[in-house]
């Protein structure tokens, strides 16, 4: 018993130091208190919308949040966890799945988004239906097609667990388990998932590992000329809701329009980040495109632009890209893949 506590204390200490130190700048950051983790905004990035206000980031909170993220007991039949549809090796999207399976193998209606740099989003889900990172999990937990569970049952299940009680004590100072603590812990975990160590990032910060090839640099030039308004650096999204002209399907998903009920928002979806595309396909709100070639072919073919009233003026007439520009652009997009993030053991299911 004594040894277990010592090991746990040491692990917490190590996690705290590692998270605090693994900042995306050249200078490491030492947390002031061993338990509190200093969250670092990557050099040159804008300030995030969420910075753990009223939810101090600690190693204990992070560990609890990770356990909850990977816990299938959040679902009605104890089979589906957040990690089921948000897989670490897929940049926390659902590998090779256009749509995902919830409890009883039911198919959802939208593609599972990749999860990283969430603190910079001002809305969650493809339609921004959740306005805050802490409340976002309520959606999938209670969606009958996804986890089909109630908050009350989740709290009840956790309350029967001695392990959870101890983790809540570590994270929040008492073993009371309520939804606020569950969501704050999850936000500490998810809010720590920062992807800022791709080749492009090293290039921009003039660090080792940032040597771009001629094709990649040409691709960056093409990107800045043709894509960067919506897919704004450094997050590679402006996190606005836009209609990029992909044709409607039988699902007739009106996206953002369902939230604002404003017809000027019909068929608009959140601009996704272009980071980690290698891991996070298929693409679009319904996962209809398996390859980046298909995505680029849509943008370059004005005939493929559906004549919506709400189509974004920037893509309405198609985007012109020569064959060479497409090749270079794809090379550039590859420099946004962050293998350090994908392999980061802190975010994975503990073995």
């Amino acid at each position, binding site marked *: 018993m004594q040894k277990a506590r010592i090991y746990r204390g040491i692990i917490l*200490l190590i996690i705290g130091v590692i998270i605090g130190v693994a900042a995306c700048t050249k200078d490491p950051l030492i947390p002031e208190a061993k338990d509190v983790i200093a969250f670092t905004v990557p050099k040159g990035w804008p300030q995030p919308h969420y910075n753990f206000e009223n939810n101090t980031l600690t190693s204990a909170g992070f560990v609890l949040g990770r356990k909850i993220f990977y816990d299938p007991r959040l679902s009605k039949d104890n089979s589906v966890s957040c990690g089921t549809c948000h897989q670490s090796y897929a940049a926390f999207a659902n590998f090779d799945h256009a749509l995902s399976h919830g409890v009883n193998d039911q198919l959802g209606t939208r593609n599972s988004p990749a999860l990283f740099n969430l603190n910079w989003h001002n809305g969650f889900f493809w339609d921004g*239906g959740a306005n805050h990172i802490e409340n976002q999990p309520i*959606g999938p937990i209670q969606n009958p097609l996804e986890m089909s569970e109630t908050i009350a049952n989740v709290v009840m299940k956790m309350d029967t667990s001695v392990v959870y009680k101890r983790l809540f004590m570590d994270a929040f*100072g008492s073993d009371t388990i309520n*939804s*606020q603590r569950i969501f704050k812990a999850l936000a500490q975990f998810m809010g720590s998932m920062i992807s800022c160590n791709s080749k492009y990032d090293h290039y921009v910060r003039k660090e080792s590992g940032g040597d771009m090839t001629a094709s990649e640099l040409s691709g960056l030039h093409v990107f800045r000329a043709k894509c960067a308004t919506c897919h704004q650096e450094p997050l590679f999204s402006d996190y606005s809701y836009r209609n990029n002209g992909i044709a409607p399907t039988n699902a007739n998903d009106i996206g953002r329009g369902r*939230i604002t*009920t404003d017809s000027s928002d019909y068929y608009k979806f959140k601009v996704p980040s272009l980071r980690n595309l290698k891991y996070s396909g298929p693409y679009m709100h319904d996962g209809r495109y398996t390859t980046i070639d298909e995505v680029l072919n849509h943008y370059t073919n004005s005939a493929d632009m559906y004549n919506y009233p709400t189509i974004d003026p920037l893509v309405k007439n198609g985007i012109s890209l020569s064959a060479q520009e497409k090749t270079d652009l794809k090379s550039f997009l590859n420099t946004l893949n962050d293998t350090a993030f994908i392999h980061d053991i802190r975010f994975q299911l503990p073995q």
Partner: protein
Amino acid sequence: MNKILILLLSIVFISYGCRKKDDVLIDKTSNTGATSPKVKLLFRNVVNGQTLKLNTTNYTNEHGDTFSVSIYKYYISNITLTKDDGKVYAEPNSYHLIDEAGDSTKSIVMRDLVKGNYTQISFLIGVDRAMNTSGAQTGALDPINGMFWDWNQGYIMAKMEGNSPQASATNHVIFHLGGYNGPKSALRWVTMQLPTAALVDNGKEPVININSDVAQWFKTPTVVNFAITSIVSGVNDESVMIADNYQDMFTIDHIDN
């Protein structure tokens, strides 16, 4: 062993330090503690003036439809009380969920008021915009209470459910009113003059008895016909219509001094 103790102690201290201190708006001359001046708000839910009884009783709405009530819950927030000299007491952390099924929720005690004669009360039906966009909440605002929408996230300001033979196919009447933003918001401010002043003083706890009339939801300015409108859940023209009706559901029944 010492390292473990330090680690555990630091966890405890950090957790304690991160608890929010209450911002209590009190006059410095007020007495606090056991004899602190208090006021109680006591809510009584009624239908056309009769005390509401869930499930068992049939009522009639303005249109002439009969109905019973199975659920009746609403948020009251941002409560202020105004004295006869114009000074205002604002309740700190003012968020309450009045639930007909929970008797203890119908009583709100406010403490540490400035002594005097209070003549006006004001509050918001629902949860204000700021609290809808500030992340995970607890207590009355815990989503476990079933008053928070999952996919278009925000609070359900008021909820009424029941049965009516005049309602469509399933006979269910379901009114979940929400929306915290813009012209279709279901938030409504209520201001009422007290018929007699509530006399607030040390060691006293006057009771402001407030009625909330379900029938008003379906009465004015728009009469609701359950055959046409029995399920309203969302942010739309119908939810606005019901909210415009329910903003008049409160009356001050009497003051107990």
